[in-house]
């Protein structure tokens, strides 16, 4: 049962969320709820073609529409030197197209009008003449010499974006050659979209009189957005005030800067009025950043007795028309090198080649710490194949290869130092919840009766908390995070962080963390995020980094405050500072616990009764540069049955045991896991952004981009082990993405397991019923 916000010593307790009262009353303040005086609305003209030359853009008819105030084209932007903007990946992207369009729905012109409806009317009256070109939709073809060069703005003469590799290729090839057993699979993670229910949008409000731009934007990283906007627009950074209001889900979709944002800012400067732009759902699904689209080939070498010897991975990454991936600068393939997973691979090699195609640009880390989902899906799927090859229970194969608790900190062959974990314990907990051996017996029985029943395991390791400044930056900015804490005279606290939550519950969990450090209740601590004029600089909320980075900053800022409080307490208790002790809620004199003061007493003194010479006030700021990443892990088990008539898969049970280190609020952690599992379920079974050969996006709305409803979504069972991170100030690791990272493989492994007796080892997601039925038919398994 959830607990009240006034609980003391709140760390680890299921405190009811502080943000909820406004949301359940309909009093949340999301972007589209903000209305400014004289505000105008913007809508965008978009290309119907995936690849075409623009012959002309005629705007006269649009100006004739009642209510239309202005139309902006790529040529207009070019005259301002704003036709292109930099991407987070160091590439550039067209703001409004000039010359060629490179993907369907690409931004071609912007129309501003007095109403939303008139803006759309104006869009329908902008006349663009195109000369269609053959689109390049297949990344493998894109790399061939027959493919046309898509990016004429770049000097190179092919569609290759980057080559990235890690590990030792020579040793890996040698180890594969000498391994007694080698399995190989092609693993495809198709293009998907995070699709938060609130689409992206912004209001740009430029005041001519002050030269200040207030930019309300659905941003997971408001400080980074301010810096990027300053770079793009030339506006001085201190004259840009970014406000990220309540956000209706992000999942990575609200990390990048999009062309619509830039157009709104330009229009506001041009017209001197606030401009609101809110994506339609179609715009959201077709143009703002996608995720995945990895074509992976993996080989695992092993001994006959089931010890892995080597891993080799080759990947073609389809980044679309512009490389707009949101990754740390040094990592064009994100943290894909976590691909060795939870297993002790002596040697490994991974390579990724990025490719341009005529698809929307990306990709983002969709509920994922930069390509970790791809890595996790790959290793957990191919370990499954290896288990079948060796006729070993997939549980047993994993046990034989787990990195053991005593091996931490563990140096992986691809360069990471895993902080902590007890993989066998996490797995055992999951096995116990589901009663694994009983499940296998039942499976056997049901198989004898002709049923297709499968059990799938995924024992994944995440890598989150980017990141340490020696390795991690975005556009050169180190990926620290920050917290500023002020205690007011009455002992009430305001804390501001550089992160920006989108539903994760920071207003509660960070209040709990800080309250714990300061001996208060979460009710005493107000958390503010998302306003760049007040919050200290931070890199934002994505990649499960809030707790590992901003959470670390919060704990250390609180400890800094407590350090000063201790001096004031010594003064109040009339003892030396060495004789003051802190029991979690009070300072007392050593050996004389009856003499004590609370943090509230100290706070009042900080403004009224200070030791002589001490600076007044009680506040601190901490910029936390984590020494390492954190490595949450989990053990997931899915049980499925397949309808032999239709190919439909029914998930009968799903158990998720997560280890995210120290838990701040178990209720919130469980909620994060439920949500991530549901997205993982969607990715395994229904979510896909597919294209036809003409470049048409086949999932441009929620009628065809299928996200799970309550009816399809399984009932989730959860459990927990706790292996604290040794280097994080409170031992926490981050959890929001683990379930999305770990679960797709569990679902697919379960379906494969149901079909394994017939020689099936691999299936391509999403697992639509027709695909399964084709497999059933191939193996003579269909019935009515």
């Amino acid at each position: 049962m959830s607990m009240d916000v006034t609980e003391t010593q709140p760390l680890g307790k299921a405190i009811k969320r502080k943000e909820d009262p406004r949301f359940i009353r309909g009093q949340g303040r999301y972007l589209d709820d903000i209305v400014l005086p004289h505000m105008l609305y913007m809508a965008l003209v978009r290309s119907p073609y995936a690849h075409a030359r623009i012959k002309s853009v005629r705007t006269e008819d649009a100006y004739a529409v009642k209510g239309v105030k202005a139309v902006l084209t790529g040529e207009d932007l070019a005259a301002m030197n704003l036709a292109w903007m930099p991407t987070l990946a160091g590439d550039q992207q067209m703001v409004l197209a000039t010359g060629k369009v490179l993907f369907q729905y690409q931004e071609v012109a912007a129309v501003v009008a007095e109403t939303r409806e008139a803006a759309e009317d104006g869009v329908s009256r902008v006349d663009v003449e195109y000369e269609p070109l053959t689109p390049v939709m297949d990344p493998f073809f894109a790399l061939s010499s027959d493919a046309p060069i898509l990016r004429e703005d770049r000097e190179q003469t092919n569609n290759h974006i980057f080559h990235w590799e890690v590990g030792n290729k020579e040793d890996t090839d040698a180890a594969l050659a000498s391994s007694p057993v080698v399995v190989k699979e092609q693993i495809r993670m198709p293009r998907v979209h995070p699709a938060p229910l609130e689409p992206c949008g912004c209001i740009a409000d430029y005041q001519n009189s002050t030269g200040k731009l207030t930019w309300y934007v659905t941003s997971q990283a408001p400080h980074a957005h301010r810096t990027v906007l300053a770079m793009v627009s030339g506006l001085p950074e201190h004259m840009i005030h970014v406000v990220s209001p309540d956000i209706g889900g992000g999942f990575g979709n609200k990390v990048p800067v999009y062309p619509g944002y830039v157009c709104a800012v330009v229009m506001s400067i041009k017209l001197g009025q606030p401009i609101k732009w809110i994506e339609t759902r179609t715009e959201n699904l077709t143009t703002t950043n996608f995720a995945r689209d990895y074509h992976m080939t993996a080989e695992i070498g092993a001994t006959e007795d089931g010890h892995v010897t080597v891993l080799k991975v080759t990947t073609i990454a389809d980044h679309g028309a512009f490389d707009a991936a949101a990754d740390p600068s040094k990592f064009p393939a994100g943290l894909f090198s976590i691909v060795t997973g939870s297993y002790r691979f002596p040697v490994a090699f991974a390579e990724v080649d990025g490719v341009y195609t005529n698809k929307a640009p990306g990709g983002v880390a969709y509920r994922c710490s930069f390509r970790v989902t791809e890595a996790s899906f790959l290793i957990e799927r191919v370990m499954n194949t290896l288990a079948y090859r060796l006729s070993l229970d997939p549980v047993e194969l994993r046990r034989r290869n787990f990195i053991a608790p005593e091996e931490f900190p563990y140096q992986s062959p691809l360069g990471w130092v895993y902080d902590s974990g007890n993989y066998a314990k996490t797995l055992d907990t999951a096995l116990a919840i589901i009663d694994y051996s009983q499940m296998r017996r039942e499976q056997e029985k049901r198989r004898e009766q002709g049923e297709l029943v499968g059990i799938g395991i995924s024992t994944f390791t995440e890598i989150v908390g980017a990141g340490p400044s020696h390795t991690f930056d975005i556009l050169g900015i180190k990926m620290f995070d920050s917290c500023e804490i002020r205690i007011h005279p009455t002992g009430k606290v305001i804390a501001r962080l550089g992160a920006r939550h989108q539903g994760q519950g920071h207003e509660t969990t960070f209040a709990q963390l800080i309250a714990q450090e300061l001996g208060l209740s979460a009710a005493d601590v107000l958390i503010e995020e998302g306003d760049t004029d007040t919050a200290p600089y931070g890199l934002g909320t994505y990649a499960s980094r809030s707790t590992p980075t901003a959470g670390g900053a919060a704990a250390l800022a609180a400890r800094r405050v407590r350090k000063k409080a201790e001096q004031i307490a010594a003064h109040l208790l009339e003892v030396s500072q060495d004789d003051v002790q802190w029991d979690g809620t009070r300072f007392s004199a050593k050996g004389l616990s009856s003499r004590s003061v609370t943090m509230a007493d100290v706070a009042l003194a900080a403004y009224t009764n200070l030791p002589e010479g001490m600076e007044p006030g009680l506040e601190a700021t901490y910029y936390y540069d984590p020494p390492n990443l954190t490595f949450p892990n989990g053990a997931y088990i899915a049980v499925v049955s397949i309808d032999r008539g239709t190919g439909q898969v029914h998930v009968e049970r799903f158990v998720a045991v997560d280890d995210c280190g120290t838990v701040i609020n178990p209720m919130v952690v469980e909620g994060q896991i439920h949500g991530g599992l549901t997205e993982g379920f969607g990715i395994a079974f229904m979510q896909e952004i597919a294209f036809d050969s003409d470049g048409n996006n086949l999932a441009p709305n929620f009628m065809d981009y299928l996200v799970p409803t309550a009816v399809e979504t399984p009932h989730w069972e959860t459990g927990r082990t706790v292996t604290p991170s040794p280097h994080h100030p409170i031992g926490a690791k981050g959890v929001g993405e683990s379930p999305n990272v770990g679960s797709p493989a569990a679902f697919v492994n379960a379906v494969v397991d149901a079909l394994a007796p017939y020689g099936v080892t691999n299936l391509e997601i999403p697992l639509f019923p027709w695909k399964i039925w084709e497999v059933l038919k191939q193996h003579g398994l269909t019935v009515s």
Partner: protein
Amino acid sequence: MFPNSFEYYAPRSVEEIFGLLEQYGDETKILAGGQSLLPMMKLRLVAPSILIDINGISSWDNVTEQAHLLHIGALVRHRKWEYVLDSRVPLLHQTARHIADPLVRNRGTMGGSLAHADPAADWGAALLALKASVSIQSAHRSREVPLREFFVDTFTTVLEPQELVTGIRIPLHYDSGFVGARYLKLERKVGDFAVVGVAVTLVLDPHGVVLDAGIGLAAVGATPLAAVKAESLLQGHPLTPELIRHVASEAAKESDPVTDRRGSEEYKRAMVNVFVERGLTAVHHDWQRLMDVSA
């Protein structure tokens, strides 16, 4: 996304409606439940210059009964049948719970669904199975068209621009002992259009002989289809597993699906087979249970 501008009329009498239709015909769209029309207008796939909102005609919101016919007014919402199980036409209840999602069912109408003529329409398949007819009216004439002659092509019916659907008539089988039905729908998720939908309804005599059979198919042709030949194989025969299998495979042959992202032609045909067999078998079991209880 927003619809284009249009002139809006909300008549209170049928005469006004027909007057408007006569005057404007092609330029108009009829707004009933609006659950297909308004999304299409928002996407600007449809841009009528005149919208006639018929929701003010309260008499079309009724279900009445006359001469062994159930008359369902054009404005009766899907949800009605979700909550009502009429044992003489159980297929209505069986089907209603599969249409779109509960919120759409609260607003969408049977008449609107038929007039829209989406080949994947659940009501299309169900009402074909029930051998329903459509009441059509204009300023100058009214006519009753069997549903099996109503659909012409995808999104196209026999309706003239001046005409509109005022209701649906379903024949009732008063003398029969047992009516059983199933609607089986393969959808990719709740709210999806049918990948394949199969409606079966049977009237059985006390010996299990089929007195009347209806099989309707959704999403496996240019319009909703009736599996006429399969139906005829059932007529006058007792239900047996062999017959059911035979009928199912005939129905699959009568279907005419196309390959798309929801599945191949072969898959969809196979699903017709599976669902017809499952539907008829389920009805057979219903009947057997009833016999066991009464015995």
